[in-house]
């Protein structure tokens, strides 16, 4: 019975009453997500307001970035998020066999992001660019690298979810771990959605 009830509520796209509303995953993870958003927010605004004092320098150096690589990375992260979303949906619907496939797809997209990003870094490194080159490059490297570390952590999280999903850990009655990890990954995606236009596009 308990399982059935859980299944029923989880299949509701929008809960009928306020009492049915629930946060996906563990509260602790959400507290962590809020802290992360705060860090990134502070970093983004530091960038924006520092730029206001060095508009010409930022504008010209920004044009040296590889916008296409940034756009492809956006596509990869969004797609990974979509796959994670589908994995959670599969778990909720009790389609156990599809959970780990969707997670694997998400992992592949995450790995793609890493490859593209490393290529970008290699090109900049070869051009002799470092944290001390200029204020713009300091921000470009700091912001993207800090985010890059989050992608790596996100991949580790997805990897653990994938292993546990293969062991049959998730189903309609057991979603907490999967939803928590999924929420973290979406946060990594969300942050990039602001970071990409800010650092690569806005002039």
């Amino acid at each position, binding site marked *: 019975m308990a399982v059935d009830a859980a299944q029923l509520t989880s*299949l*509701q*796209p*929008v*809960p009928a009453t*306020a009492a049915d*509303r*629930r*946060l*996906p995953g563990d509260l602790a993870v*959400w507290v962590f997500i*809020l802290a992360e*958003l705060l860090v990134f*927010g502070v970093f*983004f*605004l530091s960038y*924006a*307001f520092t*730029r*206001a*004092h060095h*508009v010409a320098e930022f*504008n010209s150096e920004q*044009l040296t970035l590889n*916008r*296409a690589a*940034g*756009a492809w990375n*956006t*596509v990869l992260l*969004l*797609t990974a*998020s*979509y796959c*994670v*979303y*589908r994995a*959670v*949906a599969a778990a*909720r*619907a009790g389609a156990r066999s599809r959970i780990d496939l969707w997670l694997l797809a998400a992992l592949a997209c995450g790995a793609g992001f890493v490859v593209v990003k490393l290529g970008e870094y290699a090109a900049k490194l070869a051009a002799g660019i470092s944290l001390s080159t200029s204020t713009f490059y300091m921000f470009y490297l700091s912001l993207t690298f800090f985010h890059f570390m989050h992608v790596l952590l996100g991949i580790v999280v997805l990897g653990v979810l994938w292993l546990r999903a293969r062991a049959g850990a998730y189903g309609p009655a057991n979603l907490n771990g999967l939803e928590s990890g999924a*929420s973290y990954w*979406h*946060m990594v*995606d*969300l942050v990039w*959605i*602001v970071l*990409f*236009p*800010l650092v*690569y*596009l*806005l*002039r």
Partner: protein
Amino acid sequence: MNHALAGRRRGTWTWLALLGATGFAWWLGGESVRARSAVPLLLALAVAKGVLVVREFMELRAAPARWQLLLVGWLVLVAALIGVAYYSGVR
């Protein structure tokens, strides 16, 4: 199973919309477009994409309202302040 199916469709449309918005933003950020006029549009696109991720992928539309408020609030606040910073840099 109908709800589940509807949910999956929603997710897929969300994903496609996000990809479209990304392509548009990429074009806007290119060198052919006059950069300054693109700023508000790019920020609005980022907020819109963020809201989609927050509401659909993170499924906060089905969570207690304050959570959606917190995350969307973060997005709007950050984007607005970035806009202020860009405007203050113009003059």
